[in-house]
């Protein structure tokens, strides 16, 4: 660690060395700028530029770390574990890319959608809150300091409550949705803090790498174990892990469409990353309580989520609500992949974080376009719109197919890996055959709910009085970029697969994957 400090002081730093902090700072500084300018016309371009910049930075970071090394950035030159450290490795660079990418691509969509759905005088503040939300999500993932995770978590959560409440211009239930989310989210975050407090009591440090080191040294004791329980439950609320998902359907349904896009693709994913980081890196997967939690709690709950949420989604009559329930089910797949505790399973989970992110963003964008053109997202309102809005609905179909896991789409590959992981496990334990069957059967439920939506769009008679026309170009372009990405990543996964695999290997290394830079001789 002394070496790190030394290097930090003596090496002249170029801008490239500051990438990890810039990733957070750019959106963070844009938020007050937007408020200070106070101009409705400037708010969107500023936000868009900041998001694009964040995306470019995240991409550069991913290129640096995808070979398995990592970047450690010490804030103010204070060496960890005393100072705050930002640390980027394959696992979080991947999630960072997803979050910043979705952030950048959603904004053009939001431009039209927000004009339609949010009161005019709130636009500037809306984009400021949007930037803060992005800051929080990125910060949560990039930081290597446990308490920093909490701070960023709260930044993102508080701004999310505000964003969800903006749906009130269309439906007042957005307010209560935001309120419910606030209560549950705060309880979750506070649980997380309690867990951190216990970890601090046991180890006297908050740096994640240092924590991992010390926990590995001293082994499990009651404080460490109960800290784990608090952290998992607290983050489970944010992840919408069944049965802690109650806030999600209402929040996604009544939030402005652009916010639903952002949240569905990024918020739960960032929280899942934190869960991953804590279960694998901070706590060693060799601890029996970690393994038990994964096998006895995560796996069954994930399977229940896959079935029950998919089943509920089948009976929805509202696009956004259907998609919200499907999100809960898809989170189940990701958690199941984590619970397998194998290389394939983790790779599948990390890949699914990405694939489901782009898929769900695409689908919510489709729903948002329908809201823009018909004023609501109920099935009856969208009946037969496949003829009037073929380009929008075409993209929606591609997203739907990916959600089912039809080959040739991104969703297929992660599902393929997930089943593969289950069958690999089945060689030792025949129980996992049943798990593989469960994955497959639950994806049949997704066929049903996706197909219901497609039938509504294409096979029902359109309302003769409907004046709906094709969605504006500002919406179509992001949608089709995502649709192309869904198909592209359905065929060529070299880049994604390698990165996800690298991330999985790093995570499975447990605490070793978190060793300080100086010891491993990693990149500075």
């Amino acid at each position, binding site marked *: 660690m002394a070496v790190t400090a030394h290097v930090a002081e003596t090496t002249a730093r170029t801008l490239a060395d500051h990438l990890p902090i810039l990733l957070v700072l750019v959106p963070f500084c844009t938020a007050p700028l937007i408020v200070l300018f106070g101009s409705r016309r400037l708010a969107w371009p500023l936000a868009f530029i900041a998001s694009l910049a964040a995306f470019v930075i995240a991409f550069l970071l991913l290129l640096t770390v995808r070979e398995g090394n990592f970047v450690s950035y010490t804030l103010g030159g204070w060496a960890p574990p005393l100072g705050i450290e930002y640390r980027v490795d394959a696992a979080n660079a991947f999630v960072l890319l997803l979050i910043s990418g979705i952030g950048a691509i959603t904004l053009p969509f939001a431009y039209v959608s927000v004009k339609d759905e949010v009161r005019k005088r709130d636009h500037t503040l809306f984009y400021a809150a949007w930037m803060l939300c992005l800051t929080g999500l990125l910060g949560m993932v990039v930081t290597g300091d446990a308490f920093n995770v909490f701070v960023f978590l709260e930044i993102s959560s508080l701004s999310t409550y505000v964003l969800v409440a903006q749906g009130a211009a269309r439906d007042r239930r957005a307010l209560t949705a935001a309120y419910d989310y606030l209560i549950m989210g705060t309880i979750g975050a506070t649980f997380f803090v309690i867990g951190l407090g216990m970890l601090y009591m046991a180890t006297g440090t908050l740096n994640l790498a240092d924590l991992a080191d010390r926990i590995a040294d001293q082994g499990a004791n009651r404080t460490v174990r109960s800290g784990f329980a608090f952290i998992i439950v607290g983050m489970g609320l944010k992840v919408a892990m069944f049965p802690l998902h109650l806030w999600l359907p209402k929040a996604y349904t009544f939030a402005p469409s652009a916010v639903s896009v952002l949240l569905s693709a990024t918020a739960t994913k960032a929280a899942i990353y934190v869960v991953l980081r804590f279960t694998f890196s901070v706590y060693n997967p060799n601890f029996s309580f970690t393994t038990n939690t994964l096998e006895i709690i995560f796996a069954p709950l994930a399977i229940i989520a896959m079935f029950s949420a998919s089943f509920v989604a089948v009976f929805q009559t509202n696009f956004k609500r259907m998609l919200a329930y499907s999100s809960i089910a898809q989170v189940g797949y990701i958690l199941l992949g984590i619970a397998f505790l194998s290389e394939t399973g983790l790779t599948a989970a990390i890949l699914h974080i990405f694939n489901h992110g782009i898929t769900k963003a695409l689908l919510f964008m489709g729903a948002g376009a329908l809201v823009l053109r018909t004023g609501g997202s109920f099935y009856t309102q969208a009946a037969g719109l496949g003829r009037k809005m073929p380009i929008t609905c075409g993209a929606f179909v591609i997203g739907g*197919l990916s959600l*089912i*896991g*039809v*080959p*040739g789409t991104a969703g297929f*590959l992660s599902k*393929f*890996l997930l*089943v*593969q992981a289950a*069958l*690999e496990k089945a*060689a030792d334990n025949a129980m996992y055959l049943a798990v*593989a*069957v469960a994955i*497959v*059967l639950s*994806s*049949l439920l997704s*066929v*049903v709910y996706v*197909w219901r939506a497609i*039938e509504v769009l*294409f*096979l029902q008679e359109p309302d003769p009085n409907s004046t709906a026309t094709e969605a504006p170009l500002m919406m179509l372009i992001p949608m089709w970029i995502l649709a192309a990405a869904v198909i592209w990543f359905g*065929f*060529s*996964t*070299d880049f994604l*697969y390698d990165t996800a695999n690298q991330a999985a290997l790093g995570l499975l290394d447990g605490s070793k994957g978190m060793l300080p830079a100086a010891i491993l001789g990693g990149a500075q």
Partner: protein
Amino acid sequence: MIGSFQLDTMTAIYSAMLLPMVAMAGNMAFANLPNIRDIFTLIIATLTFGAILIVLSNEGNGITEAVSLFNVFPGIDVAFNVEPLGLLFALIGSGLWIITHIYGIGYMRGNNEKHHARFFGFFCIAISSVIGIAFASNMFTLFLFYEILTISTYPLVAHKGTPEAIRGARIYMSILIGTSIAFQLTAIIWTYVLSGTLDFTQGGILEGKVAGWIVPVLLGLYAFGIGKAALMPFHKWLPAAMVAPTPVSALLHAVAVVKAGVFTMMKVGVYVFGIDFLAQTGASEWLMWLAAYTIIAASVVALFQDNLKKRLAYSTISQLSYITLGMAMATSMGVLGGSMQIAMHAMGKITLFMCAGAIYVKYHKTEVSQMQGLGRAMPITFGAFLIGSLSIIGLPPLGGSWPKFLLMVGAFETDQLILIGVLILSSLLNVAYMLPIVGRAFFLPAPEGTPTKFAEAPFLVWLPPAMTALGTIALFFFAGNILEFLNPLIQK
């Protein structure tokens, strides 16, 4: 090819897959210019067939190395190669596309169907994916195109947009997607986990990797997962899909889709399990009995169908199981007979469906009981129907007789005498449900109001079935060539 112009095999395969896509784009572009649109598609269809012929002239019946287009995961590629069975399937699919397209133009116009451009557009995607299936060199690629085929034919089944069509399309979709995801995908991933590869290899990839109860279970997952092969009890989608316009039923549900199913079944049997491995383990014995049951049961159901297309659909279910049966026998004769049945049944059944469509276009009759005496008005149509029926029944000198003969030889080889009884009984049942249709049309007195003078369907509608009917006769004489062509399948 003429002169020095030479196309290498892979380019020909890619162009055979891309050309239908071009045709689809053309359909969308010329949506409002029917003549240009249809002629454009016809030219493309001919070119596609030409591309397949180039593959044939380049490779003959050899088996080529797989060429990868994409790498998906380590060890899994989207890759293509040429082998006799796939080449035969591609030839049938693309060749009959030309004929069906001509027929489709006549049918869609004669019947005043709507949305021609959309109809032909999805048709093109389906053809493209059929060619993809035919040349797939591993199970992953095959599955990819298999699903594209399912999805692209869904709008065709639901084409009329009536509640009945939507209901039919829903059954179609749910069974095909459901079985493929629930069983086939599981089987594919399982195979991958067990053997570490999905490439089609002569002699199979599973030998020595699995044993015991897993083999029949895995085979079962494949057999039921390939819903397109319409093995009972997952056959309901085929009658349900009969709500589609007849060109769809003719090409897709008598040739492309169902043949894609049994083709996959054959590929799994020959190149994934390997027939020797199946014969050693006896894993396919239950499948043999299930196929035999399907043959008889579907024939019996067909006897009681009054709707002509439904009767033909059940007949198809029964005939498809011949191919599954051939694979499940796990003998070289069975495999050859089954593979040949793919070609022979395609030619015969497409004739029958096109005739059914011709009757519908001209007289809007769908029920067998309404067709009394129509033979005098439509002698060409019913003549073609008679030839097609005889081929399905398996009478020489028609193509359909050879596969039955080979299957019987296969049954003798394995000492399954009951199977010979099944095959004979099935032929008798075929006679019982096919010939009365023709008999009614020619010999029963026509009810009042039926024209007794010559009044055929439009030219473009009766010509294609007449051509394919002649084709079934021709196939009888070329059977030896096909047999020789397929020989690499059974070589070690």
